[in-house]
């Protein structure tokens, strides 16, 4: 029997948010790459919420963009509403979120993939990993075709042995009724990869024309739009926005849920997978928080040219009839019709502690994994991992050191460090509270933190890099000028200050000192500063304001980071035999053996490894 056999540098399995970034990065770095998807119509599919970004996730997207990834650009092309969350709070938690036109998002990403040099897009189910000893050699598809490759990146999302459940209805499908991948995880197991089972869920989609919006609160987008991509200006992407709507559940809704809770596969124990606590189903919320008399529901459009509306806040695996009954108790949804049911989905995934921080599987050379298969959740978390896996697969083939961001460089570093160090028992979601240096890891300065790295990798081109350097220089020069320019306590100044409710000067101060005052900022003191250079962009001014106003806090975090880096720099050899390290407690030895950290810093973050154990390790390593 004749089989197709082809040769590639990199095979990427799965064209979701991780797979797209991985394939684009590898191809852009010159690797001959093939990207497999079970359906060409479902590339970069958003099977759950119709938005990108949000608290901490927005940070991830901006970091992906600063490194040369695609997600930010794609959402800028396809958004239908944009909001900067937490604007009234500190700059570290300002978070960008955009509603997407889902169909358009898929279309635009597919086009980008198809236009990419060195990249082949192929619809087929990959069923087998082909290994040569402890090295990956390629994959086989359902039809028996063989694709040889020097590196393989698995971005299988929630498709491995997926089953969707609501009530007692079970379909053996992936999200959105798509074909599940029922073979690949067996092949992974045969090759010694530990597989476990996670669960997540999605709410129903409703028919817009059956909703009474007059009973809901309208949620409009921002008037001032901040693009996700640093390559875009507001005027490039401004458009008319589409509203979301807010409504609430009530006691009647909750009564229906309580009365039918025995019919929930979650509570009957039929669902075995571990679900995420931060994204609970409505039945979870009602049972866990009995005192809450109502829960928020967001009605979000799934796109510009569809009648489907996403029912945010009501993910569920209750039976169809109960879904209908409970939804129709909600103001504005009394006569609603469901287009797609809510469902829970279970799937195979791996334990990411078996990965190196480069996302390469520790025991199989050349095999990388990214996205939900690593036990994370969310489009943005997936994209961030996909990008890093793509970069590191390519760098491995280029015989270069992997790029590993640490916790002080970005949310991406926090995300991957958490995944490979702490065995999470539920799908992992990013949160700003997970980032200990979040004052430094702001969404507004992602470019300043990461563009150098993106350029060095080869994903940022010269034109973009030159523009970036220009911006950075302008910030530095202007900060220097503001520090050095003194302003005297003359009458104009004093009058200005009292008019702005600011204390009068006793001696001359620098302009920087004035900007530091809570009631003033760079723009408001313009009249006192005739020498200021013209044409500084809004982004530059923003950096100046933040870096001056929060200097004390920022300096303190930089000191913490220096301390942190000392431990990160102390490397642990890959071939260390922990049996050889006497005095380690047994628990510590087991944990270290399971995670095999690359640095003492990483070792210290493993739960169950004490400071005394770290001392023992330091002695052993002579560090």
């Amino acid at each position, binding site marked *: 029997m004749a089989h197709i056999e082809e040769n590639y540098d990199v095979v990427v399995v799965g064209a979701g948010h991780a797979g797209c970034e991985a394939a684009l990065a590898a191809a852009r770095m010159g690797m001959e790459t093939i990207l497999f998807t079970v359906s060409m119509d479902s590339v970069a599919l958003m099977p*759950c*919420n119709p938005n990108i970004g949000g*608290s*901490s996730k927005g940070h991830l997207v901006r970091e992906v963009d600063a490194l040369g990834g695609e997600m930010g650009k794609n959402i800028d092309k396809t958004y239908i509403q944009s909001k900067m*969350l*937490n604007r*009234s*709070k*500190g*700059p*570290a*938690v300002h978070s960008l979120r955009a509603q997407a036109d889902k169909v358009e998002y898929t279309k635009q990403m597919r086009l980008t993939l198809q236009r990419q040099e060195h990249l082949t897009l192929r619809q087929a189910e990959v069923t087998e990993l082909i290994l040569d000893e402890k090295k990956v050699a390629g994959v086989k598809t359902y039809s028996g075709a063989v694709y040889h490759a020097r590196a393989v990146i698995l971005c299988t999302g929630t498709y491995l042995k997926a089953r969707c459940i609501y009530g007692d209805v079970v379909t053996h499908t992936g999200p959105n009724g798509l074909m599940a991948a029922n073979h690949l995880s067996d092949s992974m197991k045969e090759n010694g990869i530990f597989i476990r089972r996670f669960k997540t869920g999605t*709410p129903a989609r409703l028919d817009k024309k059956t909703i009474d919006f007059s009973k809901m609160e309208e949620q409009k987008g921002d008037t001032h739009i901040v693009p996700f991509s640093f390559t875009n200006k507001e005027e490039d992407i401004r458009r008319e926005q589409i509203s979301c709507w*807010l409504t609430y559940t009530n006691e009647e809704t909750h009564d229906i849920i309580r009365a039918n809770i025995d019919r929930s596969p979650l509570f009957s124990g039929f669902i075995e997978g571990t679900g*995420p*606590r*931060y*994204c*609970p189903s409505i039945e979870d*919320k009602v049972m*866990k*928080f009995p005192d*809450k008399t109502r*829960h*928020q529901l*967001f009605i979000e459009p799934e796109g510009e040219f569809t009648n489907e509306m996403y029912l*945010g*806040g009501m*993910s569920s695996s209750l039976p169809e009839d109960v879904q209908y009954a409970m939804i129709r108790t909600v103001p504005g949804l009394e006569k609603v019709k469901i287009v797609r049911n809510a469902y829970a989905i279970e799937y195979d995934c791996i334990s990411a502690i078996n990965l190196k921080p480069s996302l390469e599987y520790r025991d199989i050379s050349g095999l990388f994994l990214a996205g939900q298969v690593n036990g994370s959740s969310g489009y943005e978390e997936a994209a961030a991992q996909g990008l890093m896996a793509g970069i590191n697969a390519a760098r491995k083939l280029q015989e270069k050191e992997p790029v590993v961001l640490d916790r002080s460089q970005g949310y991406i570093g926090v995300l991957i460090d958490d995944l490979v160090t*702490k065995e999470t028992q539920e799908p992992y979601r990013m*949160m*700003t*509270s*997970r980032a200990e240096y*979040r*004052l430094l890891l702001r969404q507004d300065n992602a470019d300043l933190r990461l563009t150098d790295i993106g350029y060095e990798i080869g994903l940022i081109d010269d034109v973009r890099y030159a523009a970036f350097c220009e911006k950075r220089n302008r910030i530095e020069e202007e900060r220097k000028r503001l520090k050095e320019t003194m302003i005297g306590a003359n009458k104009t100044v004093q009058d200005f200050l009292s008019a702005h409710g600011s204390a009068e000067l006793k001696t001359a101060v620098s302009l920087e000192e004035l900007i530091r005052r*809570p009631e003033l900022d760079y723009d408001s003191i313009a009249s006192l500063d005739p020498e200021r250079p013209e044409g500084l962009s809004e982004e530059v001014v923003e950096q100046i304001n933040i870096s001056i106003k*929060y200097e004390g*806090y920022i300096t303190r975090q930089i000191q913490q980071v220096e301390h942190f880096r000392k431990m990160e720099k102390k490397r642990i050899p890959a071939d260390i035999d922990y049996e050889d390290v*006497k*005095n380690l407690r047994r628990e510590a030895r087991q944990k270290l053996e399971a995670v095999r950290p690359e640095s003492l810093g990483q070792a210290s973050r493993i*739960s169950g490894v*004490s*400071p*005394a154990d770290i*001392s*023992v390790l*330091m*002695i*052993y390593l*002579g*560090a």
Partner: protein
Amino acid sequence: MVRETICAIATGMGNSGIGIIRLSGKDAIPIADKVFRGRKRIADMPSYTAAYGNIVLESGQVLDEAVVLVMRAPHTYTTEDTVEIDCHGGSILLKKVLELLLRNGARTAEPGEFTRRAYLGGRIDMSQAEAVMDLIHAKNEMALSSSVHQLKGALGEKIREMREKILYHTAYIESALDDPENYSLESYPQKLDKDVDNLLKDVDNLLNSYENGRLFQEGIRTAIIGRPNAGKSSVLNMILGEERAIVTDVEGTTRDTLEEVVNLNGILLYLIDTAGIRDTVDIVEKIGVDKARENIGKADLVLYIVDGSQPLNENDEWIIKALAGKKVITLLNKNDLKTVVDRYHLEKLLKQSIFGEASKEEPVILEISAREGTGKEALIERLTNMFFNGKLSYNDELYLTNARHKEALSEVKESLLRVKQSIEMEVGEDFYTIDLMAAYESLGRIIGEALEDDLADKIFGEFCMGK
């Protein structure tokens, strides 16, 4: 590589009545010079010479006489500049000297840090370092368990309560930052400010009680219990005996009890409620059954005095019942008189109560005559055995652990003050939680709890998040 200057109490407390504090690191000599007044400055002393002088507080008040020994890099254990300060010992005094050094720029050594530096400096080889680390490991674990044990009472409760409060606030704020459309922070800063004030009050109280020596009472907490006329005060006097000279009297803040720490062959006994014993022979009558029970409950070790010349009575009965699960040494007193108590019967009763019928453990009974002063050697031997078998936990590392606790409390205070400052400056709620979590972590170090994923657990557990 430049390392921070570390210090630690290097010797057993009270052994020979002298305590040694060791300082090591680049600033060891200048820091020692700040606290030591001798005929010349330590900086001017040649390596491996000693000088006599005083340890002096910032106020100029003399804390103690001391001998300092200076050893210059690289010919020292750690290969760094090292200063040893030999004081007159006494737990309270040593602690004060240690704190004085901390205030002057040293920090407390981590467990095994001297040894680590010695190894890194090439002074000792791996197997030597490992041997030392083994010991330190064991000591440190004992110290931790001991201090945690001390913290089991109201104080530990207080710290847990404070942490809980801090975690709740942090979780709420973080939930609101994560899901701003669901949780509002409207007027939350005012509420937080009030709670931070209360927390600060708590921290100050803890710091004060530490200063008064009430917070961490080193030594094996020992209760002397027995029915009226069993001979408790003679036993107390026998124990204090010739060791009187190095007994430290610390007046408690409550002023109604006198606490005593006595050193028996290098083991510190912290005697509970000796005031009662001193004032009257009849402790049970004076302080009542409840108080005696409470003392048994608080004790790490109970010395149960039985009058061997009289039959057991109902007082002995309830005392024996109250001993369930405790570490007990029973002293069958008055063996100079005719013994009427059936030792076999007593043993059976004690075993039943202390260990339970099925246990293979045997109760410890020593025959003594407090009046004649016989049996003290046997008591000391017993204590030493129990101590080194790990049945009684207490060791020198505890002092250091406690100094670390104080450092941690000071950090808590600093962090909370920063929270207040951020609230005042209206910098945004996300700034509060950074310092709140720092305070939370510092408090956790005191009760030996690491951070782990408490915050995420709290957020998901208390607040309803998500789409």
